[in-house]
């Protein structure tokens, strides 16, 4: 197992390298000039050029890449072209909101989706099944920002139960922290619930027809016991897989949700950095997301060994 983990960790190096090259080149080949953004709309060409020289943007792309990689290997993600802060500092400031949103969304999504999927599978063909699957289609189809606006309108504007926007750090008070996360988490969880519920239903249906489940029922075990001990555990592997794959959805959704709800997280930082052509920040955030995604998939793979004793690395 240890060897497997080490091999997987080593495998992240080529993945991250490819991502680094890709994002670096893509930024420099795409339109836009951070120097022009920094200088402002009224700046002259000469002023823009001075800033380009100062930022090293006139150097050949290869040279810029080597300098950047050298810094990354020393743990230096560089300084933002715009903020008077290092990129590491910027990311540190924005990590808590995104982490809080992601964890809340994940917990909410799993807590809602798995029971929904199980109920849909057990009540297959009934109105319950159709409602759950209908909701699932809706959850996939409606864009995240539309769900966000609708929830804001209902719960924040009309009913006044929850705030429209913003984020409060946990250290500043638990209730304030929680109430500002409710709407964004629900918004982001919808698509996740749709995905997990469908996979749960399909996976549970497959296991419900298995011989060992028939045997368990024949032995006289109660429905709940059959479901929890014999069905769910065997159906868990695909569910956990899709939760892991869904992290990519989560990352994309976080970008939109943070913008809609005014949460100053990594998603917003990414959007702001892209619009401003803040190359060091974009590069660092994309690298971070790719490492997170790889790590989560590793955790998912390791989870299989807990769920299915037949799986060993």
């Amino acid at each position, binding site marked *: 197992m240890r060897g497997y983990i080490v091999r997987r960790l080593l495998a992240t190096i080529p993945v991250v390298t490819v991502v680094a090259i890709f994002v670096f080149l893509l930024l420099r080949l795409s*339109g836009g000039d951070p120097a022009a953004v920094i200088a402002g*709309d009224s700046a002259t*060409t000469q002023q823009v050029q001075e800033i380009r020289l100062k930022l090293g943007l006139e150097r050949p792309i290869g040279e810029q890449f080597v300098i950047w990689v050298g810094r990354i290997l020393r743990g230096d993600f560089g300084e933002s072209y715009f*903020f*008077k802060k290092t990129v590491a500092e910027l990311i540190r400031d924005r990590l808590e909101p995104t982490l809080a949103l992601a964890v809340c969304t994940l917990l909410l999504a799993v807590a809602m989706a798995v029971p929904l999927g199980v109920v849909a599978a057990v009540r297959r063909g009934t109105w319950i099944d159709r409602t759950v699957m209908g909701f699932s289609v809706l959850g996939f189809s409606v864009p995240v920002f539309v769900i966000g606006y609708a929830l804001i*309108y209902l719960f924040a504007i009309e009913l006044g139960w929850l705030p429209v926007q913003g984020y409060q750090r946990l250290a500043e008070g638990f209730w304030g922290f929680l109430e500002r996360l409710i709407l964004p988490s629900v918004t982001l969880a919808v698509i996740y619930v749709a995905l997990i519920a469908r996979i749960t239903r399909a996976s549970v249906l497959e296991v419900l027809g298995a011989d060992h489940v028939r045997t368990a029922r024949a032995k006289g075990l109660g429905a709940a016991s059959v479901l929890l001990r014999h069905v769910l555990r065997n159906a868990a592997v695909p569910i956990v897989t899709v939760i892991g794959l869904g992290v990519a959805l989560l990352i994309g959704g976080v970008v939109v949700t943070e913008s809609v709800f*005014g949460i100053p997280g990594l998603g917003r930082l990414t959007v702001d950095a892209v619009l401003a052509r803040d190359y060091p920040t974009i590069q660092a955030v994309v690298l971070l997301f790719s490492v997170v995604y790889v790590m989560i998939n590793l955790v998912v793979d390791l989870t299989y060994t807990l769920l299915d004793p037949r799986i060993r690395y």
Partner: protein
Amino acid sequence: MTFVRRCRAACLAISMLWCLAGAVPAVRAETVLKVVMHSDLKIVDPIWTTAYIVRNHGYMIYDTLFATDANGDIKPQMIGKYDLSADKLTYTMTLRDGLLWHDGKPVTAEDCVASIRRWAQKDTMGQKMMSFVKDLTVVDAKTFKIILKEQTGLVLPALGKPSSNVPFMMPKRVADTPASEQISDFTGSGPFVFKKDEWKPGDKTVYVKFAQYKPRPEPASGLAGGKVVKVDRIEWRAISDHQTAINALLAGEIDYIESPPHDLLPVLKQDANMKLVNINPLGNQYAFRFNTLAKPFDNAKVRQAVMVAFNQKDFLEAVIGDASYYKVCKAMFPCGSPNSSTKGMDGYLDSNFEKAKALLKEANYDGTPIVLLHSTDLAVLTNLAPVAKSLMEKAGFKVDMQSMDWQTLVARRAKKDPPAQGGWHAFLTSWVAADILNPVSAGFLNASCDTAMFGWPCDKELESLRDQYARETNPSKFKTIAEAVQVRVTQYPTHIWLGQWYGPAAMRKNVDGVLQAPVTVFWGIEKKGR
């Protein structure tokens, strides 16, 4: 009985305590104004960049030697008194008493001289002013002199310039930072203090009232006069989504939105707790900019054809829509400003397509497609290019409209490559009126060829007229020269002005005292109750 007595004693004690609590003066709650500005503050050096949000930040924490009032007149601000020598070659300026930096140290003449030098390294009007200056000398702690090589009427308009780059005063130790580097010390002498420890880019920017600020005695007028602060704290919240910002305002989570989009104004109008205030009476002006290096726009007649083919109303309707927020104004310098005039504009901006076609024929236009850059992500600009394309095609032009986000456009307009190889022929933008009040400050009128702004017009006559304006010391003659500039621009078009538009600020009804000025400022504003 004992129990009853104890209860009575307890009630009495509680009553006494309640009364005592009422007798203790309540601590006044801090007044906090929560604002959503048009952009998030990232850079905090208003000399290093011309970005408007940084300029607005500058007005919070810095002060200026002179300022422009509501009538467009230049008034002393930090300056207590000044005079001009009889030969009009020496300005002697003395600071007001009681001016302090946020660290408590007094503002000195030395600080001001250093600040002027730094500002003039970057600002084009400052550079122009300094071309007339022989020396800046410090006389004593509060007095300095501007000694000129030759007479010019530019000194006060330049030092009282309302918009980017504004000549903000900084401590000498800060102003000695080369203009090519950003400052890292944000000590100012303005009415607010920047709370750097609470600044979270992308989240919020915080300012607190500077208790030792000494406002001028006269009432505030435009950017001049007494800057009296009536709130304790101002938070600029970064809410990038317009709908969310509007919702937050409606829910009372924020107090003020600087520039809500026009299509959401009806939502705000429906709510009795909201009000819309036009804080910038001069507004903004749309502009169509030519690249005079790119054929066929290297031919003035072809550019004139575009000017004849355009009309302002179509553009304004397409973007703003509501006539109460725009004005058709054929003057190149904004209507309502001192240099505004329609001289020379007969026959232009009337969409006379036949005349435009005739001009194209005279110019031997060969059908070269005009590469028109179209920005897609700024609501106030998005619909302009399609209107321009339509009008130009009716006049006989072939137009290749290329869509991109604003930042890509900004990068592309800096290129001098041929349009077919990544360059451009034209794009549309908007100027804040405060930036285009005279021929020297209006960037698009700089016709100094390679050193001009993107578009690079090259015209000796235009430059000569601008120079004449800069040298003129009699303000009554400014307008005549400005009119001559306008007439010349109809003959050698550098750009086309496409009308004025206004964007009201939205705020809750309990926010009062908002000043009308070309820049959003926060002195004078008070917040009453909820």
